[in-house]
């Protein structure tokens, strides 16, 4: 018998063995071998409740303690699982084989962040033999380094799998993986439009979270069949039944056939696959109709041009076809079509219902935009498919290269990123202190952070980011309206009548213990209380309306830290409202430092001004002269500090033996000056900008 103990901390080894002894089946005469896998990610409090025994000749899953009822159902006959697995792996290699449209299933997985979506996707790929075990790595579909490191999904991904169901038929399953974070709900909506069904994955210990709801509503809007899946039932805190009730109450989804699973331990995976086969409707068989295929993603490949990912809705697409993109009107000849499994695998034709990619030496992404419909140029469809609403940036910030020489590189990098990230917007911006850069628009803060990090990592750029801001609408004295996202472009106080700022409705879900701290947080951020209701006995939902500007700061971080990570949130834009806003300027040695300017609420201006000047005083090194640092509203100084002049910086000795070493010190000092930006005569270290911008994010 082979015993595999998953993630057993050494301290719990003994009880584990002890419990196993009880369960030892006298029918097995083989000696017992204990293999221990230590897995850092596995919660330490997970003791013996999750010991899984696999026997060489056939065995069963033991769940020693804290056995949730659902898990019993999830228990499978491992002998047949083994056989099926073998079978599946054989089948996996055949996944290019065609199946009738009635046996195609297109589905996506929707979940709140961290509820185990990517792990489940990994397991599905593995169990269906789509990915060889030796090629398998965690978060297989998240192929950006950044996605793996942060454990999140940013870009949607697709994977075609072949699965032979219990009924003996081979099915073609197309999984379209989606990001979980609220910033990327745009990506989610795109992938949902290409599917007929969705797995709703909910953490069996955490229950329904804000983004669960948001994503469910998106799926319902798209008329998708939703299969509830309760994940992580192996955790000691798992309460799948309670969470089922929660889903039924909050989401209104029937959970009588919810699947209990542990993606991590591979429990219940086959049940999920069966459920997909049985519950997700097959695409409509419209093979005879004129071709219509919806582009749900595209990216630029330097060798093959734009690669479009699409779902064939009607008709058949063949390699070599001449196709037209209905929105742009451009006609191209298809060089290559194929499926994503998850690597690109060329095929000759794709039928209605299938998901695939095409390459046609398309030079510009604009020719094959996401949301466009592909049809045959000779036999065009009459009406294009409904496209997607274009993503509108909600948060703006300036991106400047630290080294002015990198401006051109930054532009190229942004252009390249935009090819794969339609939501990213940018335009050139000039600033006296930062030089040439770009004003960029993002879907949210995470999006902003991700773009910034990708620029720095993938394109080797060193960037300064200004404080994030939102788009204000300024009503001028002549009643005309201008939009302004950059504090330095705010019209003069004399010229403006009022400033309107975007408001969001924010929906927070939290265990009831943290209602107080969350209300406090929302109050601090100028939030207006709207409603509070208990979802279950212990969890509540809080609704506030607050300015987007207050949320783009560290609101989400604060929400997490004040609730020990238990609360979740979701927001939507609800329009513009008039606010008493002022422009806060920072003056260093009498010079206004534009990148540090911010638009703040009048009541907050003083505390923000004080915090900014104090931070700058800490961070700007003494210089040859005294430097006043002021925060002003217009000409009025509301906070000020001063850095006294440098008194002494001298090397006492410099004799024969000292020269080399002293020169090294001076060179190092000179090197430090390179990382300074001149503000008038004052040298301001890069770090000071960064720290102040961070501070602005926190307090503005």
């Amino acid at each position: 018998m082979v015993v595999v103990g998953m993630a057993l901390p050494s301290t719990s080894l003994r009880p584990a063995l002890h419990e196993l002894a009880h369960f030892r089946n006298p029918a097995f005469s083989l000696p017992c071998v204990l293999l221990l896998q230590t897995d850092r990610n596995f919660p330490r409090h997970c003791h013996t409740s999750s010991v899984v025994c696999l026997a060489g000749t056939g065995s069963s899953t033991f769940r020693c303690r804290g056995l949730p009822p659902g898990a019993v159902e999830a228990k499978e006959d491992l002998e047949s699982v083994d056989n099926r697995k073998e079978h599946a792996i054989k089948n996996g290699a055949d996944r290019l084989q065609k199946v009738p449209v009635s046996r195609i299933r297109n589905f996506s997985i929707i979940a709140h962040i961290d509820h185990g979506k990517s792990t489940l996707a990994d397991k599905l790929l593995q169990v269906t033999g789509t990915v060889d075990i030796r090629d398998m790595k965690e978060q297989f579909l998240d192929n950006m380094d950044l996605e793996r490191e942060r454990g999140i999904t940013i870009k949607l991904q697709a994977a075609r799998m072949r699965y032979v169901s219990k009924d003996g038929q081979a099915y073609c399953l197309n999984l379209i993986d989606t990001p979980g974070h609220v910033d990327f709900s745009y990506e989610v909506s795109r992938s949902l439009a290409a599917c007929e069904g969705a797995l709703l994955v909910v953490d069996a210990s955490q229950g329904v979270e804000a983004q669960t709801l948001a994503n469910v509503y998106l799926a319902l809007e798209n008329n998708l069949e939703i299969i509830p899946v309760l994940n992580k039932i192996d955790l000691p805190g798992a309460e799948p039944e309670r969470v089922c009730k929660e889903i039924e109450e909050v989401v209104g989804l029937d959970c009588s056939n919810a699947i209990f699973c542990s993606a991590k331990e591979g429990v219940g995976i086959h049940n999920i696959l069966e459920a997909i086969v049985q519950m997700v409707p097959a695409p409509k068989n419209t093979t005879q109709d004129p071709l219509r295929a919806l582009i749900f993603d595209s990216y630029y490949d330097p060798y093959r041009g734009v690669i479009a990912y699409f779902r064939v809705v009607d008709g058949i697409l063949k390699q070599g076809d001449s196709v037209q993109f209905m929105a742009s009107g451009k006609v191209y000849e298809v060089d290559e079509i194929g499926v994503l499994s998850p690597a690109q695998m060329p095929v000759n034709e794709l039928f209605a219902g299938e998901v695939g990619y095409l390459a046609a030496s398309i030079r510009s992404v604009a020719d094959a935009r996401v949301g466009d419909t592909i049809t045959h140029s000779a036999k065009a469809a009459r009406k294009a498919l409904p496209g997607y609403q274009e993503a509108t940036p909600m948060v703006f910030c300036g991106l400047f290269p630290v080294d002015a020489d990198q401006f051109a590189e930054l532009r190229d990098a942004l252009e390249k990123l935009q090819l794969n990230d339609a939501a990213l917007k940018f335009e050139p911006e000039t600033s006296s202190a930062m030089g040439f850069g770009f004003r960029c628009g993002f879907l949210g803060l995470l999006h902003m952070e991700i773009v910034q990090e990708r620029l720095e990592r993938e394109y080797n750029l060193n960037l300064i980011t200004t404080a994030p801001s939102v788009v204000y609408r300024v009503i001028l004295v002549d009643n005309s309206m201008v939009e302004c996202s950059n504090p330095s472009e705010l019209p003069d106080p004399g010229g403006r009548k009022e400033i309107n700022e975007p408001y969001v409705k924010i929906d927070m879900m939290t265990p009831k213990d943290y209602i107080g701290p969350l209300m406090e947080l929302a109050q601090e951020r100028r939030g207006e209380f709207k409603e509070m209701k208990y979802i279950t006995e212990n969890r509540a939902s809080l609704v506030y309306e607050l300015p987007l500007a207050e949320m783009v700061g560290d609101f989400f971080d604060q929400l997490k830290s004040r609730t020990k990570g238990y609360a979740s949130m979701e927001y939507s834009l609800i329009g513009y409202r008039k606010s008493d806003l002022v422009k806060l300027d920072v003056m260093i040695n009498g010079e206004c430092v534009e990148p540090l300017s911010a638009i703040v609420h009048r009541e907050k201006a003083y505390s923000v001004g004080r915090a900014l000047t104090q931070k700058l005083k800490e961070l700007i090194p003494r210089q040859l002269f005294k430097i006043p640092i002021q925060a002003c509203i217009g000409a009025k100084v509301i906070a000020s500090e001063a850095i006294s002049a440098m008194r002494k910086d001298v090397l006492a000795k410099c004799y024969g033996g000292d020269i080399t070493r002293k020169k090294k010190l001076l060179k190092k000092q000179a090197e430090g000056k390179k990382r300074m930006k001149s503000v008038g005569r004052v040298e301001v270290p890069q770090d000071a900008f960064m720290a102040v911008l961070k501070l602005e994010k926190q307090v503005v």
Partner: protein
Amino acid sequence: MGNVFALRLASLSTRCSPCQNRSTSTSTSSIINSTQAPLSTQEIASSSSSSSSAALNLLSSFSPPSSAYVHLPFCRRRCFYCDFPVVAVGERSEASKPYYDSTMLNYVDLVCREISATARGSPGGPLNTIFFGGGTPSLLPPYLLHRILDCLQSNFGLSSQMEISIEMDPGTFNGASLSELIDYGVNRVSVGVQSFNEKLLKACGRAHSLKDVYDAIEIIHSSSLDHWSLDLIASLPFLTPDLWMHSLTEAVEASPTHISVYDLQIEEGTKFGKWYASGQHPLPCEDDSAEFYRTASRKLREGGYDHYEVSNYAKTGYQCKHNLVYWRNLPYYAFGLGSTSYVERRRFSRPRKMKAYAAFVDDFEKAEGKVDFPEDSIEERILDTIMLSLRLAQGLNLREFAQLYGRSVTVAFCRGLQQFVESGHVKLLDIDGKDVGNHECHERHGIQWDVVERREETIYMRSFQTDPEAISCKPLRTKIASDWQALFGQDLPSFLKPDTVFVRLSDPEGFLLSNEIISSLFSAMSIVK
């Protein structure tokens, strides 16, 4: 443009050298022309054979050294602030005597072997200056010092006007040992007093008492020694303005010909480094220690000393010639543990541990006195010139700088200077060493042109200084102005007054911020590359 200027300068240096008849205009101009690009070794070799004084001038760092530093690392104990390569040997007692003497004897043998090997690999001399530093060189029995001097003489020769300095600590010498040293040729003594306060001496771990200090001064006064220096350390822990004033007063009272005032540097790996943080109690804060520096500068200048280098003061004619070799970026030999030499444009540091040093000497002898070490690049020499000459009151000779390193380097340097000229931390001096644009100003800058130099302009100026009426400086001033115009053209810095020849840091404010200023200039120079 640069070449035109180079030619002009070349002809200028020929015409304006009344005391120098050796230069030939052809060879000079050819060398100066080539300074637009870094000089290759070949050019250097061929030009130095022409024996033009301009060539010597340009190639001064490549000419054979005529100075030698000898490191004698023995100390009774290590002071709390010291990070020098020293060997603590304790007090010489009856019991420790055999070990004590043999340790020193073995070391002197090593040094003498290094000297002989060096003379084979990089012959030079005759020596104009020798400096015995340490450590505490006065712990060495005079006869051993004599051996080293003999060895230096036989290998390099000594010039008649030479300066032989030795560092001595109070309590390690008496009248007899001093006069023995004087007999061997030592003519300059540098006494490590550090403080005139008993408590402060203790606090920094000195091995001598305040009484030893006064005794040492007495011994020197009763000797035939004419030239001696007194070292003080400023900003010691627990130092107060009163205590500092007292030390300065006592120092002036002792009437040495030379005073060094070192600002305490907290080095990693020393006791002080472990105990104290710069600018925090008990160390004086930045403002206080700046004030100590200003006080020293004012008080010592009032006492008749010229503030000729950041940390050094001297009565007229008593600057330390040996140290000026370092600051003028001229070559020098160095011998002994952890010492650094600058020979054939190579700055080479010897091992700081005795065993490693002994091994080095073995290898060095086998290699016939050659070290495998890269030559300094022209960029490094430019930085050396800036760093070292700006520490001097004489400052940096901008004309010579332009001649040596060309137009673009000079333009970058002047751009870097601009803000400091405006802030008053950098002063411009004319050919007489007076503030530019202020001919009435007779303020002394402690400039003495009478050492080591073989530079035409300098020699010209010396004759000018000694006899102001002898030569009219008017044509030269006009020349300088037109040369700047020719060099810079459109880029002529607004601050550069027509008769500017030297740039220097102001005293005390510029000196006080010398690191900040020099590193800014380094940063300005990095644009050129």
